[in-house]
């Protein structure tokens, strides 16, 4: 907490220009259009990967600019990183079971 020098009257917070919000909005719209367009091109397994990559990019823009995380404290970054880490941990460990179920060649093992 010591890292913030407070003006006791104003709640602090970054005030960004409207142009930034409109820019992020445009990126989100373009991203949506690309997601739909790319879904109609056969890229094999890359279809899913691209769709997710675009979704992650869009989400990142929302988090950084609409949710002001770019200017937020390090603790906020840690909180977000922890949530992503735990989510992926659950996916990764959960899926490891499903992916390795046939390896032994013994049903149910």
């Amino acid at each position, binding site marked *: *907490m*010591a890292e*913030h020098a*407070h*003006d*006791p*009257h*104003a*709640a*602090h*917070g970054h*005030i*960004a220009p*409207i142009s930034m*919000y*409109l820019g*992020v*909005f445009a990126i*989100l*719209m373009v991203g*949506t259009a690309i*997601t*739909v367009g790319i*879904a*109609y*091109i*056969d*890229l094999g397994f890359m*279809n899913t990967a691209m*769709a*997710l990559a*675009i*979704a992650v990019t*869009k*989400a990142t823009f*929302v*988090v950084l*600019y*609409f*949710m*002001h995380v770019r200017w*937020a*404290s390090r*603790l*906020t970054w840690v*909180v*977000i990183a*922890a*949530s*992503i880490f*735990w*989510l992926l941990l*659950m*996916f990764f460990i*959960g*899926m490891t079971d*499903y992916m390795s179920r046939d390896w032994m060649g013994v049903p149910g093992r």
Partner: protein
Amino acid sequence: MHAEHSTHGHDHAHNPNLQHHFMDMPHQQEASTLGMWIFLVTEVMFFGGMFLAYIVYRTWYYQGFAEASHHIDLFWGGFNTVVLICSSLTMALAVRAAQLSNRRGQIINLILTIVLGAVFLGVKGIEYAAKFRDNVVPGRNFEWHGTDAVGAQIFYSLYFMLTGLHAIHMIIGIGLMLVILWMAWRGRFDASYYGPVEISGLYWHFVDIVWIFLFPLLYLIGRHAPLTF
């Protein structure tokens, strides 16, 4: 640690919105913003459980998922994506207006946000009605004319859970926005106190982010290979 200690750092005028156990407004706002972020972590894990189920069954029943995904209406899904992105913009602008003590800007942007949220829910209603009409609601005369009825039914089960819980979050969000709108109407927020607008905004953006993932994962599976059935 905070520099000022003794009593509660009363060397300045008391903001009436300051609760007694905080030292000053930034302290209070930091705490409430952190609280909302931590709440959003729980929301991530809440939806995460369903996404794990989605990943498992999508790998098991890709055929059924692709068939079912072709059956849901891409137009309305895309339309709703655009609506939600617009609402996120108006929400962000409402927070900005509050930061600048601009009461009118807050009211206009909050009303737009609420209207867009309502439009989203209306469209969702249209989509759900179509599902009931086509008998693709799991557990209720589920009929499937494609090849993989089992996979399609699981897809629709997850579809209804994911979009249904997302819609419930939207409804809660709209309720929250109505409260914020009322408070903004009464001029409660200005540059020194806009925490409630900001943290409701965080919630609204989170719900938007969930949809950003739901849209490709539900509406766009295997679109490149049209299925005939």
